């Protein structure tokens, strides 16, 4: 078994979710690394888009901004925010990767604030950016995040970005496009999906070296468990070499 760190494990696990021919809107950092890895390892026809306007570039190295020149390097189109978001809203985009300071059992995300006073928050974060839009419009939202019981919170102090809202059919009733929503949560310990009726987060796979108990102990709410929980496969030597040599040679993301 190859040696790897938790960031490499999460990126490799995430990349396997992206099948050839699918489309995805990504941000910078780990999600970008996962999309690039998928494209180089097994999904050469993965269409990668950036919210600022870059469409289907041949990304030479990881962008530092979703609007920098690397996002249009040998791209098919340099467009704008409305073009990308409307392509999502029209139903053409399969995946997006998001994250946040807090995530709850329905996959709702907080990237706005900590503290009760909105006009004078204890901690102010960037806000939605394009996250709320992408989670509303893209068919499947993926989250890649380290797992601890503070981040996996009973309740988000602010729901910036919609998951399954309050579970059940609440999202369907909200007015958001039908059929889109959180799909999988990929952490350093496990992979979770959402139970189809209650829309609650559920363990479906545990990473090598972790137990179901570890996963529950590092979560601020009760996780459901799939009937059969698999042991996730570690990164392969091929995945690791692409990630380390071609995608992130300066270890900006995988060195974290």
């Amino acid at each position, binding site marked *: 078994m190859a040696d790897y760190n938790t960031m490499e494990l999460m990126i490799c696990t995430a990349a396997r979710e992206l099948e050839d021919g699918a489309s995805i809107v990504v*941000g*910078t*950092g780990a999600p970008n690394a996962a999309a690039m890895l998928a494209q180089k390892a097994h999904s050469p026809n993965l269409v990668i888009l950036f*919210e*600022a*306007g870059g469409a289907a570039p041949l990304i*030479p*190295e*990881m*962008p*530092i*901004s*979703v*609007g*920098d*020149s*690397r*996002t*249009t390097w040998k791209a098919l189109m*340099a*467009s*704008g*925010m*409305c073009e990308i*978001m409307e392509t999502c*809203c029209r139903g053409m985009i399969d995946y997006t990767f998001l994250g946040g300071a807090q995530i709850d059992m329905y996959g*709702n995300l907080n990237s*706005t604030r900590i503290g009760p006073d*909105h*006009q*004078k*928050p*204890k*901690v*102010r*974060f*960037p*806000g*939605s*950016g*394009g*996250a*709320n*839009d992408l989670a*509303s*419009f893209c068919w499947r939202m993926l989250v890649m995040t380290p797992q601890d019981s503070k981040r996996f919170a009973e309740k988000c102090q*602010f*729901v*910036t*970005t*919609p998951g399954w*809202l309050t579970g059940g059919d*609440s*999202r369907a009733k*909200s*007015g*958001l*496009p039908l059929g889109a929503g959180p799909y999988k949560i990929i952490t350093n310990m496990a992979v979770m999906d959402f139970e189809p009726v209650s829309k609650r987060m559920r363990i479906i796979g545990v990473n090598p070296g972790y137990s179901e108990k570890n996963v529950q102990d590092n979560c601020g709410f009760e996780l459901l468990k799939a009937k059969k929980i698999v042991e996730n496969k570690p990164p392969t030597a091929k995945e690791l070499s692409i990630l380390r040599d071609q995608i992130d040679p*300066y270890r*900006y993301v995988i060195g974290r």
Partner: protein
Amino acid sequence: MEAIEQGIGKIFTDPDPDKARAFFRTKSRKLESKVMSVKEAVEKFVHDGDYLTLGGFGANRVPIAVAHEIVRQGRKNMGFAGHTSTHDFQILCAGEVFNKLDVAYIVGLEARGLSPNARRYMESGKVEVSEWTNYSLSVRFKAAAAGVAFYPARNVMGTDTFKYSGAKTIECPFTGTKYVAHPALYPDVSALHVHESDIYGNCRVRGITVSDFDVARASKRLIITTERLISNEEIRRDPSYTVIPYWCVDAVCEVPYGSYPGNMYAEYFSDEEHIREWLKVEEDPEEFKKFLDKNIYSCKDHFEYIEKNGGMHKLLKLREKEFMFLKARD
């Protein structure tokens, strides 16, 4: 039509298109030179209390010279559209220029991390905020550009982002489903950085466009900074390249390297070293004050700022990086 639900956030600008039309009726259509310095443009068109928008994407094709000049001239009590804003937001926070803010993306510089000073300012309670998203603000500009009061969209419903916005939900007259109505946003003044403009303000842009073309049309007053001036004959030679027509524009300022330290598509890459230094120095408010004196307050203009940070040698390196970034890394 009655709203089904309504956010509690304030709307800082009037979305009424008839009031905007009354203003645009008075806006000059004269084909005359609008060339002036950034200093003059800001003196003339940016006032205390105005609602401001800056184009580009945070640190990509951003009108940095205008942002610095606004801080240098000490504008206060402005409204601001925190739409995809990163380094531009950091600059305005340094001058505590605004106290009303529409938030889509603020405080962060994407993969570079969060700005300590912007966070301090946003956690001080001095700024009144409404929450939106990048797309929400994009369609608010789009509605204004189209001369209508709102734009229907399918985002934000069911979230606190909606609750703290000034949007409303309405019933679709065709399908009966719910839509969110985003109110038109007509900025008092905006600044955009472009690749090329003639002296009248007919502009060409390369690379990604973000929401700039709608911002240009939605704004009551518009300052263009351009990498270079080109002739009107060149514009007329092939009008298919024109993305902003001169009648939207009030000032044209020739500012080569005007997006520095940001990235400019097909011109130069961002100066990551300088942005890193900026983020680091913000950790200590006293050091940051000295840094601002050096880089903004004591500078006559954008070129003096560039001179102090490596001048033409630095710029040539950034040009190389933009064109050869496959191999030209620090």
